[in-house]
């Protein structure tokens, strides 16, 4: 049993399982660094997963599927942005409402469009890629072969984001509006604009994360298939101290847990208990992050421009 658990396959599947989380988590980083708490990520992922399936199913092209998921994710994020930035509504309330909308809406649409309860028909995802040369190395090569292009894209985006947030003027401003929007405003930085951008980026990334679930992981859309991954991604973001690479690290931890979980199935532990593992891990991780990670100072606080 041990060798099956600690095999290269486990690592490969850990990376696969970490990918949707990493997309969403990174989305969370952009949104919260700009000062908007986005628990709607769960719903964004769910819409992403659903519309990726719809796009792929009708156009027979996973790229269209991903495009659909991006559009859907962006629309949900846009609603969250308008409600929480423009109307300054409590961001948790807005996020919760959007998660309800996603749970009900995708199920509703799925039953209408696919004319079946429970799930969509099978869909074809992307053709996997082998990284030349490295993938031929025995053992470790396994990690670099049979890769979804979305995994590679995720890694590129994570490192790019780290650079954008900490080395560019855009990143400086985005972080500034999340730390002290008033200070940024007095320097002529448009707080609302950067917050909108932050939330919309989270919609795009959350949407792709959802697309990965239906296109690359399950190859089918299943009702409520995100199963709390949006929240797990947020926990990873917190554990990663609201930083792209840190969050990726935390997502890999969760990915590993999920990979092990799948290995554990069929060894006699009831499935329900195996299912609980990521949720319990999330709670442990959050408790462990207390006092070690600091959110942006203005995270979750609507900015009221002093203009009466």
């Amino acid at each position, binding site marked *: 049993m041990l060798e099956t658990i600690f095999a290269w396959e486990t690592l490969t599947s850990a990376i696969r399982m970490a990918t949707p989380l990493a997309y969403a988590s990174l989305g969370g980083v952009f949104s919260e660094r700009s000062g908007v708490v986005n628990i709607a990520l769960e719903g964004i992922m769910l819409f992403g997963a659903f519309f990726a399936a719809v796009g792929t199913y009708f156009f027979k092209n996973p790229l269209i599927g991903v495009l659909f998921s991006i559009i859907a994710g962006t629309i949900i994020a846009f609603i969250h942005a308008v409600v929480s930035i423009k109307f300054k509504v409590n961001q948790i309330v807005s996020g919760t409402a959007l998660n309800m909308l996603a749970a009900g809406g995708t199920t509703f649409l799925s039953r209408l469009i696919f004319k079946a309860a429970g799930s969509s028909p099978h869909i074809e995802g992307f053709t996997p890629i082998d990284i030349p040369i490295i993938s031929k190395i025995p053992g470790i090569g396994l990690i670099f072969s049979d890769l979804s292009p979305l995994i590679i894209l995720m890694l590129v985006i994570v490192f790019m984001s780290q650079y954008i947030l900490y*080395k*560019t*003027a*855009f990143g*400086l*401003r985005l*972080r*500034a509006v999340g*730390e*002290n929007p*008033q*200070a*940024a*405003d*007095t*320097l*002529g*930085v448009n707080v609302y604009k950067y917050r909108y951008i932050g939330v919309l980026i989270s919609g795009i990334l959350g949407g792709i994360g959802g697309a990965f679930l239906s296109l690359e992981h399950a190859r089918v859309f299943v009702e409520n298939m995100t199963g709390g991954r949006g929240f797990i991604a947020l926990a990873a973001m917190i554990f990663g101290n609201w930083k792209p690479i840190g969050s990726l690290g935390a997502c890999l931890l969760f990915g590993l847990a999920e990979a092990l979980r799948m290995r554990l199935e069929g060894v006699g532990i009831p499935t329900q208990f195996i299912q609980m593992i990521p949720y319990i891990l999330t709670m442990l991780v959050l408790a462990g992050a207390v006092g070690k990670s600091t959110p942006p*100072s203005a995270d979750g606080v609507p900015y009221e421009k*002093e*203009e*009466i």
Partner: protein
Amino acid sequence: MEEIIRLEGITKYFPGVVANDNVSLTIYKGEIHAIVGENGAGKSTLMKIIYGLYKPDKGEIYINGKKVNINSPKIAISYGIGMVHQHFMLIPPFTVIENIILGSEVKNGISLNFKKAEETLNDIINSLGFKIDLYEKVENLSVGEAQRVEILKLLYRRAEILILDEPTAVLAPQEVEELFSILRKLSSQGKTIIFISHKLNEVLNISDRVSVMRRGKLVNTVNTKETNKFELAQMMVGREVFLKVDKAKREKGEEIFRVEDIWVRGRKGLDVVKGVSFNIREGEILGIAGVEGNGQSELIEAIVGLLPLKKGKILFKNKDITLERIRQRRLYFGHIPEDRHKRGLILDFSVAENCILGLHYFDRFSKGIFIDYSKVYKHANEIVEKYQVKTPSIKIPIRNLSGGNQQKIVLGRELSFSPDFLIAAQPTRGLDIGATEFVHQLLVDLRNQGKAVLLVSADLDEILNLSDRILVMYNGEIVGSFSQSEVDEKELGYYMTGVKKQTELKEALI
């Protein structure tokens, strides 16, 4: 003289008040122009209008003779106007240079180009003759240094007109001198400086001209050389003011309160109060002076029970109360918290509900597990009447009351159980002169009745006027102790900035 800004008929309404009422004012290029007035006179509002943060309801702004429309700080910046706000607009986890370039970044492709910005900044810093580490995080800077960062922000944006809103409120006297020397250099470089203050000594020291505001109106603009403190004070208040509180001499009474060698660890894990000891006797006001952030807040929080003691003892009438919880300690003293909105009141609770905050579990307000609201209303009405609180009803949210009336509720509540000891932290912050006088008189009355008062204030005038004994806190320690008669503002300043330190604190424990 060449005019640089001209305001004509600026009027600005806020709900319930006219913040600026038909204000016209001309500022000349290169002058240091002070604007004085009480809290709420409309100084800050007027400045925020010039800086594009507020839109005036009426009136026009001319810059260099041209009519302009300043809708946002961005436009103000483009006209060469910069502002240092009363509460610093800095981002603590960012470095000095990041704070400065934000919004006007120099880029190298898509990356930030710090080298280029550094060159520009070094030129400015050298011309003003001070030092600062551009790559230090702002959270590690002293208040004076942070203020310099704010000024650098403006100069980096090539500001020609610098507005400083109460810049000295948070500084020790020596830091004020340093600031003034920077301002004089700037003025000699041809920059125009608008300086808002209510400290008349400073205004007379630094400015070329002074404008006085009262209740939203511009009362008068005078040449500094041709005026004096009393004339300005009278213009500010519209009546004669007594700058001193009358206080009869009193004999030394019994000891009411004592702390012995207390140490407090701050929220960041460092010791912020280091071995403080003092006592207070019946019939005296003990003042604690110090630049903000030197441990006074934590000292009070520890005394009240909000922060745990790392070491030391707290005694009330010789009884050790170190291990008692907030609720038990409340019976020994009243407490006016330094930030009444944060700690003293619940703004969305009614006036009546606020009148029992912290006393709500007293038997006199309850029937078993229930609160007896008829008694609460009676109690609230008593406070409103006794302290002349202006409110249409005791059932409206206290948010709707003015700062002075809110503070009266806090005072009334804290004195309603007749404690022998009152802790007053920044008790007049943000109040107008009328309310300030009211509070000062009340503190002195308490003292004259034989009660003990611990007064913590960043306002040296307040400390010097009211206290019988004065302690100075610097970097978590008591560094100086004086009886009222033996010290002046300047001397206190040396202790507040750590220049001087007494080896023997003879006035701390008497």
